[in-house]
């Protein structure tokens, strides 16, 4: 391959800084004409510069007019960061390059000006870019575009934002035929898959691997105290963690959920007798508070930061020399990416410690450590491109002007994840956008899209474009409420709506590391006052819990086959040995089902190892079937490896409960009334443009009566069960919170083989289940029963008849 030399200007600049060009930066330069190129590099390896270098060189002569390079990142903050970082070489070399960012935070006038007179380099997010393609003048804006750089593409690729971005690229590619695509990624398990998403199908995409640096130095934190049987707090490890913080310069302490981060931070602070500067950072905190912590961290003012995944992306980590992961990592890839971000010194190994929060997590942590050593990353293959995102793309396209369906279909199938989309499926989406796609009753007069005489499609009412633009994006609302101090406007952060619902005035809880007292809910804001208490009354608020990845579950099951466990701490090895002695250890190709009595209830514990979400769904399905069989289930609880059900009647033959055909049929029934499905439906319908998140001049209060989207779901289930939105909803139920796909995986793996053991007491492996939080009561008519009870209490309080 031809070696592209750096122009003298650039050579000097590198020399002045005492830098040599990295091999992967040179490789990016050499292949800068490739239609698609993906760089996999650890942080600190000059990844961003590698991405921008070819554009800086091309633009250095000052000959290009208008937009040359688009940079897309998942975070607004990252776009702003990169703008600052790019200024250094551009200013120091005196290059005639205009760089601007464009995000949701950019002012209206600035945005207008950017459309009229685009900069050379525009830094933006997938949503802002999609919006830009919706304008009539998009062809003029993108005409001369040469390159698009997608940063953190591995993160975008995990969500619908990636699909939306790639659809936008297919549009832009038509407007800018010279467009070349560059992806920047962290280490992933399947680089080819991401490369195929990035490239225009069927273009090839070269992958450049930067030197990954030495393997991380990673181990389990050994403590004098044994981890508890259940729970996620890891309070037992506080002294050991504090010792490590003292030994290092800056430590990041990661948690899987915000709640755990809050509790850990609180406990750490109580034990922090040396007053070490320690901060907390998670996604529910107010932006100002997060920014304060980030600034302190970059300035090197903090010795430790207790955080969640919100610190994963984009932010410059400064001089972090230790990463501690509290709680089993659940996903090896995320762990590796996280650790890889520590230690900016390119050739020194990153240092990390895992802290299991409970006994079973000891096993999980050891499995994760082995996976990291074996470079065995996990990840589930992505499904085909989601159709709700395609519907939104069709509407966005219509905003820009009339379009030809054949041409749009051809364009969409150049997107990697939509390459297998058949014409009929595309037409369904187009029909949904045009007429609503209803089987029994058509909108004749008031279609959204009309077909012109020449066959092109356009908006019936051009004013609809404004509403479509206001609703661009695929990020879902997370039903959170702002929390603020009484009498103070500034928010402290957010809590889940479901958590707020459990509070009564006087309850105390943790937010941002302080104990606050719940006072009232005012206009969708939680009002609190400050409290000096040491312990909050309400220990936890909810947060997303990750499910153990399929690969990690498999590794654990393999570990169970060992004769003994020299690789595990004694307390955990003994526990597994005892389980093997009194019952047996679960195996990958069969489902172990234990039944035993405990405290007057009959228990059934099924070890399916399908991950938390799927095991939870399994609990729903099992109890539903048990109710039909008059087995009187009372409740269940699930974690990553098992589901435990208790009830009034012993289950003598559990095998029929696990028949694949039964489970699938029950799943269909369950879906129709399920709250998670309604939530999934709401998400898909919002993305597809059936429900509007934002309305023009929306009034915050007042007479505008809104109705629940649940009624739309119920109506469709009843009258139009094959409607596109329900098809999409069912498809999504295979993943995510319902995760029926992993139940299917479990059924395939075990092929109907059930080991049923009848025992006389709680088994060692099921013990943690009894201590697990999130027990769910089964009640057929639970909602009405609860409501009636609550009504009676209210009536008694008020004293009316």
């Amino acid at each position, binding site marked *: 391959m031809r070696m592209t030399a750096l122009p003298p200007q650039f050579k000097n600049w590198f020399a002045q800084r005492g830098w040599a060009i990295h091999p992967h930066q040179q490789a990016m330069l050499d292949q800068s004409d490739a239609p698609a190129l993906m760089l996999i590099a650890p942080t600190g390896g000059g990844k961003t510069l590698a991405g921008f270098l070819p554009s800086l060189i091309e633009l250095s002569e000052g000959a290009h007019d208008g937009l040359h390079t688009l940079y897309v990142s998942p975070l607004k903050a990252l776009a702003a960061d990169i703008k600052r970082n790019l200024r250094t070489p551009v200013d120091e070399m005196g290059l005639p390059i205009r760089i601007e960012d464009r995000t949701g935070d950019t002012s209206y006038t600035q945005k207008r000006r950017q459309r009229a007179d685009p900069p050379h380099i525009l830094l933006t997010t997938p949503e802002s870019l999609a919006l830009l393609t919706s304008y009539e003048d998009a062809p003029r804006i993108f005409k001369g575009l040469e390159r698009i750089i997608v940063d953190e593409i591995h993160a975008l690729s995990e969500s619908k934002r990636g699909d939306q971005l790639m659809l936008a690229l297919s549009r832009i590619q038509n407007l800018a035929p010279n467009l070349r695509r560059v992806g920047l990624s962290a280490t992933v398990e399947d680089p080819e898959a991401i490369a195929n998403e990035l490239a225009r199908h069927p273009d090839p995409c070269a992958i450049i691997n930067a030197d990954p640096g030495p393997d991380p130095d990673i181990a389990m934190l050994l403590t004098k105290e044994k981890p508890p049987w259940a729970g996620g707090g890891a309070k037992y490890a506080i002294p050991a963690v504090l010792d490590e913080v003292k030994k290092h310069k800056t430590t990041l302490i990661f948690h899987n959920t915000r709640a755990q981060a809050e509790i850990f931070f609180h406990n750490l602070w109580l034990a922090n007798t040396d007053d070490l500067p320690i901060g907390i950072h998670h996604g529910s905190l107010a932006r100002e508070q997060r920014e304060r912590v980030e600034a302190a961290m970059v300035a090197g003012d903090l010795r430790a930061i207790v955080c969640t995944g919100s610190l994963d992306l984009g932010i410059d980590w400064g001089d972090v020399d230790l990463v501690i992961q509290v709680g089993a990592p659940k996903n090896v890839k995320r762990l590796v990416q996280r650790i890889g971000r520590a230690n900016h010194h390119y050739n020194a190994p990153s240092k990390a410690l895992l802290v299991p929060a409970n006994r079973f997590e000891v096993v999980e942590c050891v499995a994760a450590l082995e996976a990291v050593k074996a470079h065995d990353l996990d990840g589930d293959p992505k499904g085909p491109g989601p159709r709700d995102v395609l519907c939104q793309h069709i509407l966005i396209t219509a905003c820009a002007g009339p379009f030809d369906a054949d041409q749009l279909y051809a364009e969409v199938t150049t997107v990697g994840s939509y390459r297998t989309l058949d014409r009929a499926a595309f037409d369904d989406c187009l029909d949904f956008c045009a007429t609503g796609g209803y089987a029994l009753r058509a909108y004749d007069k008031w279609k959204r899209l009309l077909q012109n005489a020449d066959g092109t499609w356009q908006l019936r009412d051009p004013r609809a474009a404004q509403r*479509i633009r206001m609703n661009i994006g695929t990020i879902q609302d997370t039903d959170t409420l702002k929390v603020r101090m009484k009498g103070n406007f500034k928010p402290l952060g957010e809590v889940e709506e479901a958590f707020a619902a459990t509070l009564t005035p006087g309850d105390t809880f943790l937010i941002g590391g302080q104990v606050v007292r719940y006072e009232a809910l005012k206009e969708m804001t939680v009002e609190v006052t400050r409290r000096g208490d040491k312990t909050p009354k309400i220990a936890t608020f909810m947060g997303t819990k990750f499910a153990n990845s399929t690969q990690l579950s498999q590794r654990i099951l393999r570990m169970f086959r060992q004769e003994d466990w020299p690789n595990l701490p004694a307390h955990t090895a003994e526990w597994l040995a005892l389980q093997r002695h009194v019952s047996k250890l679960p195996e990958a190709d069969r489902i172990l089902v234990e039944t035993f009595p405990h405290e007057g209830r009959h228990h059934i514990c099924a070890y399916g190892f399908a991950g938390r979400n799927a095991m939870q769904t399994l609990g729903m399905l099992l109890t539903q079937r048990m109710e039909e069989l008059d087995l009187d289930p009372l409740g269940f609880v699930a974690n990553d490896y098992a589901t435990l059900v208790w009830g009034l009647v012993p289950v003598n033959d559990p095998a029929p409960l696990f028949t694949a055909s039964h489970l699938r049929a029950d799943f269909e029934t369950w879906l129709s009334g399920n709250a998670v499905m309604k939530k999934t439906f709401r998400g898909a319908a919002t993305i597809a443009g059936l429900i509007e998140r934002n309305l023009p001049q929306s009034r915050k209060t007042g007479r505008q009566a809104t109705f629940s989207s649940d009624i739309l779901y119920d109506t469709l289930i009843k009258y139009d069960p094959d409607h596109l939105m329900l098809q999409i909803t069912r498809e999504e139920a295979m993943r995510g919170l319902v995760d029926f796909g992993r139940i299917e995986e479990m059924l395939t793996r075990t092929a109907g083989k059930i080991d049923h053991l009848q025992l006389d007491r709680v088994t060692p492996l099921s013990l943690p289940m009894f201590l697990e939080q999130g027990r769910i009561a089964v009640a057929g008519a639970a909602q009405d029963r*609860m409501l009636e009870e609550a009504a009676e209490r209210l009536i008694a309080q008020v004293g009316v008849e």
Partner: protein
Amino acid sequence: MHAPQSVKEQNMNGHDFILCGTRCTALPTGALYLPDHGALCVSDLHLGKSDRIARRSGVMLPPYEVQVTLEKLQTDIDRIDPQTLICLGDSFDDLDAADSLQEDMRLLLTGLQAGRKWIWIEGNHDPGPVDLGGTHLAQIKIGTLTLRHIATPEKAEISGHYHPKHRVTGRSRPAFVYDQDRLIMPAYGAYTGGLASHSPALRSLLGPKPIAVLTGKRAIAVPLTETPPQAHPRGMFY
């Protein structure tokens, strides 16, 4: 006079009460039955709402709300067989919607009207007469009560328009609210939604110690408390 059979005797899970001397039963569907007069009253059907939303915004909701609403009304009528049916205004989302009712739905409505007196009270959405049979009135007096679309300071009144919803636990539900002098009906229409029971517009109409009757599987009466009700968990398991 119509056989004064209370709905409770028919096991309809209703809530019986007396408003200004007239017996009332709030049904769990959101309809109100006046057993002494053989009258069934429903409010704010907003038929044709999906059509109007499509016309105005381009968003095309499942166009089945007329069917859902009329089928629900069919069930209530079949059970109670009222002599008189009163639609308390905003029966149509606008007058165009009334005119463009599809043929099968028009037939369904005609079937419901057969054999009984049918009164359309005018609402702010449907101020003019409709070409669909029945009598068109601004208001009607039944027993001691006056039925009209929008509440007035007058006592002994049943109205719609605000169509309250109320939350005790779980999701908020359409609800009747009443005090000594008046009753405000929930919306009967499938896509109509409602106004939160603690909103000032609604509270200013009510005297002390008002009662809310939640719709659902059973009509459940609760006192309307002063503080706004709390938010609620969305799903069963988070």
